[in-house]
């Protein structure tokens, strides 16, 4: 399929950038956050421009020119305003493409996708509106184009264009309206950006400092090297020979004149409709969602804390047990990542129960199965430096690492693994545990890698107990199978050097338990 090919190409590019920037600073993994950054730059510089802008027919162009001549301040603000707006279109469109290629537009993600669509309209409307304010020849050209386009709708009665045909037909009031719109539309945009990230918890809205710094420096250098300029003042009775278009925003106008107003409306409507129905075409059967088992739940709320999609809410306890709260899963929001199961303190394999029931579990991959598969694999591990690797179905497969000394399991998400499993494996014969997930914090379920890291570093509950020596656990955030093999090989070499040193966990705790094997 084309999408899969394109995804492979994208992943190759991303891996190249991983090597260059380091996975966590890779701009490809920060496109949404970068769009937010650009928005704030545009808003901040816009405020400065707003103070100096003259909202009159003759003053508009003059005031912008005066600003531009102050290259070190007003001109710089103007250039930053323009280039940050352009950059926002770039990152927004790449963000859309990337989410699409990774298939993150259906299932529970429909909400993020659908609320992204109006953002496109609002961003373009804000930008085009901004280009009117300069009131130069370009502004007049797009004013006429916009009016011709809107006049196609019966709503406007086909007379909006008459406001722009001759120099006399406009008034200062018109500029007050434009400025009002240029504040209003971006405010609505901001509101919708906020709505866009409502269904995910802890959204990445700030790029990492170093990346933000580099990006701002880039904008600054570009602004100084190529200051934004106006064209000649608007003249309704002359069209310039050439217009320098900002293609990030104004591509629609050449399109308008190659097609027709109706044609462009058709294209815009079809594009919007296509994006709008995408979450519901070729929909895969929904995954079973997380299930709460109150008999194993003490209401601690860790599942609620860790869920990346705010799908768990805590409600007053209803089963009569002496706890205050109980978790409730909203099936419409649950992405079936299993991170909640990894967070639940009842998910510990040390419990001596025949069937490991946990407080919140995934029907398609119960925690009990994880323990059973681990227990079957541990005795089969042979040779030196025996390793248990846990990975994720969405990343580089840990299961592919299987060999006599290595057992690999792939979970719904790296964050599904309860830390007690690591301890359990080490106590029951593994020399080391390798945790595998996607590089750059670019987890399919957003937070799996982050929670895993924090749990292993004992910065988050449930944490890995200090009885497991740190050198026996290694985390490999990778996006490439070769890289993972190299990590494993290096880890096993390291484990071999530890072999002779005394293991700090001397004797495995032997647990007697009846097991029914079906």
């Amino acid at each position, binding site marked *: 399929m084309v999408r899969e090919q394109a995804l492979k190409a994208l992943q190759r590019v991303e891996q190249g*950038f991983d090597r*260059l920037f380091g996975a966590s600073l890779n701009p490809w993994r920060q496109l949404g956050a970068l769009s937010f950054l650009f928005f704030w730059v545009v808003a901040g510089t816009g405020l400065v421009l707003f103070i100096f802008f003259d909202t009159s027919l003759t003053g508009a162009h003059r005031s912008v020119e005066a600003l531009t001549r102050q290259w070190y301040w007003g001109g710089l603000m103007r250039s930053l305003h323009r280039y940050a707006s*352009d950059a926002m279109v770039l990152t927004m469109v790449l963000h859309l493409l990337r989410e699409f290629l990774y298939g993150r537009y259906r299932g529970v993600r429909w909400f993020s996708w659908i609320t992204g669509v109006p953002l496109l309209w609002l961003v373009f409307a804000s930008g085009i509106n901004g280009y009117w304010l300069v009131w130069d020849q370009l502004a007049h050209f797009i004013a006429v184009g916009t009016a011709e386009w809107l006049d196609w709708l019966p709503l406007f009665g086909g007379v909006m264009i008459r406001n722009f045909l001759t120099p006399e037909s406009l008034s200062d009031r018109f500029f007050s309206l434009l400025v009002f719109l240029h504040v209003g539309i971006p405010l609505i945009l901001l509101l919708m950006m906020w709505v866009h990230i409502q269904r995910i918890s802890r959204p990445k809205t700030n790029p990492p400092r170093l990346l933000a710094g580099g990006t701002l420096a880039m904008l600054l250098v570009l602004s100084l090297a190529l200051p934004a300029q106006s064209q000649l003042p608007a003249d309704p009775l002359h*069209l310039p020979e050439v217009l320098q278009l*900002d293609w990030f925003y104004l591509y629609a106008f050449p399109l308008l004149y190659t097609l027709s107003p109706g044609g462009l409306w058709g294209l815009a409507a079809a594009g919007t409709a296509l994006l709008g129905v995408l979450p519901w075409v070729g929909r895969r059967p929904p995954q079973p969602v997380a299930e709460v088992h109150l008999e194993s739940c003490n209401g601690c709320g860790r599942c609620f804390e860790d869920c990346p999609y705010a799908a768990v809410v805590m409600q007053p306890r209803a089963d009569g047990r002496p706890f205050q709260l109980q978790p409730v899963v909203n099936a419409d929001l649950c992405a079936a990542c299993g991170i909640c199961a990894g967070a639940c303190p009842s998910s510990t394999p040390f419990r001596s129960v025949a069937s490991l029931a946990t407080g919140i579990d995934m029907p398609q991959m119960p925690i009990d199965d994880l323990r059973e598969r681990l227990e079957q694999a541990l005795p089969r591990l042979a040779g030196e430096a025996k390793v248990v690797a846990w990975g994720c179905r969405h990343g580089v497969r840990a299961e592919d690492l299987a060999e006599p000394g290595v057992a690999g399991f792939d979970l719904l998400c790296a964050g599904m693994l309860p830390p007690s499993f690591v301890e359990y494996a080490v106590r029951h014969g593994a020399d080391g545990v390798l945790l595998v997930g996607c590089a750059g914090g670019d987890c399919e379920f957003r937070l799996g890698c982050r929670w895993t890291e924090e749990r292993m570093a004992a910065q988050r509950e449930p944490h890995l107990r200090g009885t497991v020596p740190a050198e026996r656990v290694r985390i490999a955030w990778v996006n490439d199978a070769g890289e993972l093999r190299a990590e494993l090989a290096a880890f096993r070499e390291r484990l071999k050097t530890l072999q002779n040193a005394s293991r700090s966990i001397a004797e495995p705790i032997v647990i007697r338990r009846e097991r029914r094997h079906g």
Partner: protein
Amino acid sequence: MARLWRIALQAVCYAACAGLIGYFSLLPSYRPLPAGQAMVKLTIRHAGQPVAECRQRSPAELAALPPNMRVATQCARERSPVTVRLEWDGAPLYQAVLPPSGLSGDGAASDYRRFVVPAGMHRLRAELADSVREPRRVDRLAEEVRLEPGRVLVVDYRGEQGGWVFR
């Protein structure tokens, strides 16, 4: 050394991104009109004459009406369609019959068209007829116009200013 290389390559990436943004924020330039051409924009917003003349109600008719509606003259609300014609160097350029707007046909007729024409001296003639009762009554303006390349000539019918305006 490897670190320096990485930083240098990162700088190249940033520069490429800046280059991309800088380039497409200006280029490629767009030509709104082919070289040596000018544009004529026809714009009309004009209410045609009423389709029928106003008529005096007879005393009998008046008496039949409720007292508050006894107005002596009765006028049709519907307007005539507006016929426009443009002639360019003696050849027809455009012709249209524009219906009145509004549900009961009592609003203004309007139209907007753009024509790309060669620059230079040309003879432009505009005609408008707006009454079904007097089809012969045509409001016209014919002028020699000099259009340099890129000139936008606005051809507007402004009833209140006495008719056609070439601007």
